[in-house]
């Protein structure tokens, strides 16, 4: 590039430093890429180092069962005059104080930091079940339309534009939407409509009143469903598109209707892929906090969703009455607010004063949460690679 009088071997290179520059640039680019990888690794490592000691134990059964099987509660730390500290829940505090007697010096209470995180785990699981069921149903149906039925035109463009924009809507706006739509307006069957009801349609034996579901698993689940809907639609459509056109043509050529073609020649091959990508949807739904803040989540609850106080049945209750109560108990799971892991972490991190005890609860929850999410993501990524190898047409 530089001189014209150079008679040296033109293949020797490096005389102008081009190769050096190439190598340097390559290393700079490589460093930039690995910066991201290393940062991720560092964050994971930090959480692992701080969180694993909370969850695991050095002796049998190696797992802190209390942390995984109890509900969150207040932590009492009692100090005696020798400087020893006793940690206990709400119930144990008085006994310890009595036992210490004269020796009692001081007591500290730390909100939410005692017990375990079973409540939040169960709540998150419920929210995920509701949201993924709704989102899979809507999303796969939408993807089938887009991939199998839709023809180019205004309607298709409108739908694609809507999906793109829906994917960009901030999660907190979904929260506002869920609050306005599901918590305050969605239709329910009631005997007497509430004052805030937007519209009440009398049906004779009951009234369909648009007064909302209140903050509950259903409201939160539906809100989350719309948050992950774009993800599910896009992923499902890709899977459907990946099924070779020839399968459809063969089926149609045999005289099958379009629905039969989809049912027997397209969906069976696309389903594994759709389920795989929906796992990512699960991870996303489990991780969102803002949409459930006003629609489903509670900072504190001392019962699991199915531990609801119902009036005891008389001894001679009919089978139907028992069934009805079981049904009520089951529905009650979905019509009550729950604790959720991400919201629990938010509460621990932002709403209570920080000290060593709250830090332990924080890192423990974050560790468990991250392990769950990472497991889901890894399964999804691994299965996708596996499937890609299996269905290679």
């Amino acid at each position, binding site marked *: 590039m530089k001189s014209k009088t150079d008679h040296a071997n033109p293949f020797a290179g490096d005389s102008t430093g*081009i190769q050096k*520059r*190439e190598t340097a640039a390559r290393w700079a*680019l*490589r460093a*930039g*890429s690995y910066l*991201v990888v290393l*940062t*991720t690794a560092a*964050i994971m490592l*930090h*959480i692992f180092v701080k969180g694993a000691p909370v969850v695991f134990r050095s002796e049998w059964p190696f797992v802190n069962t209390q942390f995984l099987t109890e509900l969150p509660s207040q932590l009492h730390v009692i100090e005696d005059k020798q400087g020893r500290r006793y940690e206990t829940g709400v119930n144990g505090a008085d006994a310890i104080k009595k036992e210490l007697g004269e020796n009692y010096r001081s007591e500290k209470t730390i909100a939410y930091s005692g017990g375990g995180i079973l409540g939040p785990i169960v709540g998150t699981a419920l929210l995920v079940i509701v949201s993924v069921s709704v989102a899979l149903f*809507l999303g796969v*149906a939408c993807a*089938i*339309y*887009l991939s*199998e*039925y*839709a023809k180019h035109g205004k*309607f298709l463009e409108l*739908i694609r534009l*809507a999906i*793109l*924009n*829906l994917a*960009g*809507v*901030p*999660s*907190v*706006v*979904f929260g*506002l939407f869920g*609050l*306005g739509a599901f918590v*305050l307006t969605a239709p329910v069957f009631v005997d007497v409509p509430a004052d805030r009801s937007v519209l009440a349609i009398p049906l004779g034996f009951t009234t369909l009143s648009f007064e909302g579901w209140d903050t509950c698993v259903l409201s939160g689940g539906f809100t989350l469903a719309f948050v992950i*809907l774009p993800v599910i*639609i896009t992923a499902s459509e890709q899977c459907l598109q990946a099924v070779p056109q020839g399968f459809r043509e063969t089926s149609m050529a045999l*005289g099958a209707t*379009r*629905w039969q073609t989809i049912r027997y020649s397209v969906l069976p091959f696309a389903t594994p892929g759709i389920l795989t990508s929906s796992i*990512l949807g699960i991870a996303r739904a489990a*991780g969102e*906090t*803002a949409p459930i*803040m*006003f629609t489903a989540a509670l900072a504190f609850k001392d019962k699991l969703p199915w531990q609801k106080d119902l009036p005891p049945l008389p001894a001679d209750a009919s089978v139907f009455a028992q069934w009805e109560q079981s049904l009520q108990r089951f529905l009650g799971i979905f019509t009550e607010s729950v604790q959720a892991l*991400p919201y629990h972490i*938010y509460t621990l*991190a*932002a709403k209570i004063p920080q000290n060593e005890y709250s*830090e332990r609860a*924080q890192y423990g929850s*974050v560790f468990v*949460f*991250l392990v769950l*999410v990472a497991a889901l*993501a890894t399964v999804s990524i691994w299965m996708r690679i596996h499937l890609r190898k299996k269905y290679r047409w």
Partner: protein
Amino acid sequence: MDSSDLPRRPELRNLIIRNRKRTILGFDPQQIIKYFFGANASTAVIVLVLIMIFLVREGVDFLPTNRHELQTYRQAGLEFCDLVDRPLREHQTLSSSLRQCVSAALEPIVKDARERRNAAFLLKTQAEEKAARQREALENALEREPPPAEDQLAALRKDLQTAAAAASQALIYPSLFTAEETALFKAQLAALSPELTDLPPFIQALSAEFMTQDRAAREKYADLVTAQEEFDEAPDDLHELVDELKEQALGAKQSVEESHALAVNRQQLLEAAETTADPDEKASLIKEAEASVGEEVDLTALTKELTARTGELQTQIAAYVESAEKAAASLPDDVGTPDAAALLQKAKKGLPAHVQDMREAATALESWRVDKPVSMLRVIGAFFFGTEWITNSSWQDFFGFVPLLTGSVVIALIAVFIATPISVIAAIYTNQFATDREKELIKPVIEFIQAIPSVVLGFIGISLVGDLIKEFSEVSWLQWIPGFPIQERLNMFNAGCLLAFMAVPTMFSLSEDALNNVPRGYIDASDALGATKLQTVFRVIVPAGISGILSAVLLGLGRVIGETMVVLLVAGNRIAIPDFSAGPGVVFQPAHTLTGIIAQELGEVSRGSSHWQALFMVGIVLFTISLLVNWCARAVARRFESQKA
């Protein structure tokens, strides 16, 4: 397969499909299936429309509600008081910078004495802490009724003495003290007991030393000190007057609000009476409505009382302005240290503007009219250009969203500024240079980042990144960076870093797609011309994919602006416009954001209040921003696409 089966099958199919074409209510089932899927596909459109409808339904009433509030604000005379009170607030800032200037000027003279005194106090507290348990025991024993036996007390005393002696030995004495002083102090610390109420003589001596030094320093800078004191006291009378007026106005506001609430109640009761069928209930409702009448508030009389004192206010303002100017004039030029000089300059610069503001306030008082209506335009302006977001205030709530918007925008810019180069570099490297094995590492890892919940990243920001940045900012050879050392652990830079981390997956995968889509022919042509790999990448591939990269950056920006949990946890949540006079160091200040304010405050407000509506208004703005960003990203992608074609 049996050959005899084959010919029969078509007949069966014919029977089912062709000959008996089934219909459901006159519709072709295939058509119905198609419409079913079509209907599901339109969910996306419907949800988008519903989001708009619900946001608007809850938020749109903000304008009339807030207009009514602003009307009350004016009619009750709160605005009148604020005319003076607002510019007067500047006095506090100026006064505090003068106070800082004084202490900075005194600093070199009194520094040693103060540090010695403080160190001694610190040591005393530490010693006391170490022997706290024994001390407590002795104290309890002394207070007990009847007093315990003398030998018990003696034992306790002895315990305490041993503990105190051990503590005084274990302490680390700074080099501020000479060896003799240390020994003296040690002995005094060891002798601490609950009966001694006086400070140890050593500390008393140090305090006295400090006082002398301080007095000497104050004499040296007597000009500055007196000017500062004069300025500090200058607005006292004015403050008193304004406070009195404010109380009056607040009373007026409360009575207005009460009578308004009663009126609303009455209206509701009458409406309920209208709809009810039961005559008895109707009568009782109407009766209740009749009772719900507040006394008519005579606002004109109330505000007349206020405006009647305009003259008095103006005289006070004039007096204040005069003394402030006098103080300004008597400020000396030379104050010793450069720190003090800088503060003095700041005060000197701010004073004339402040005086000018006060004079303008005095004239504005005259032109203020209580009966001027508040226009809708003003309400809209107060929301979109208001610089104050004050809620739950005993004086007046303001919903101006500029501070929130600035916070959001600055954080988003920081994030994009950090994330763009990293993700583009990673995309270029993965797409063009990486071996297959590297690709198998980098891609899943970056994909995994997307799965990390944002609240976890927010928590990382609080527990890890905040401390890292703070420690980093205290390293001595990095002090040239503006804004170092930082004050707040939780600030915009911290939030920006984490958001950048979050935005990397979006930007990376979209940029990589864009690079992938560059036609093979471009690369081949470049190679054929003898270009090196680097030249091909930076002169052919990247320019060809620039549209995709740009739209990736824009989509990343959209994601960053809409992110909630990280900013809520990490940005510091101070509702104020960042002080841009700090230069680039502004990024180390805390701020609040559009998304954060909704998440933080919505749970605590009652439905239908102006605060609730204001938060939904913020939601509308956010929604609009996200649509705009999306539209821009598409437009950019399309525009460059057409240029290339």
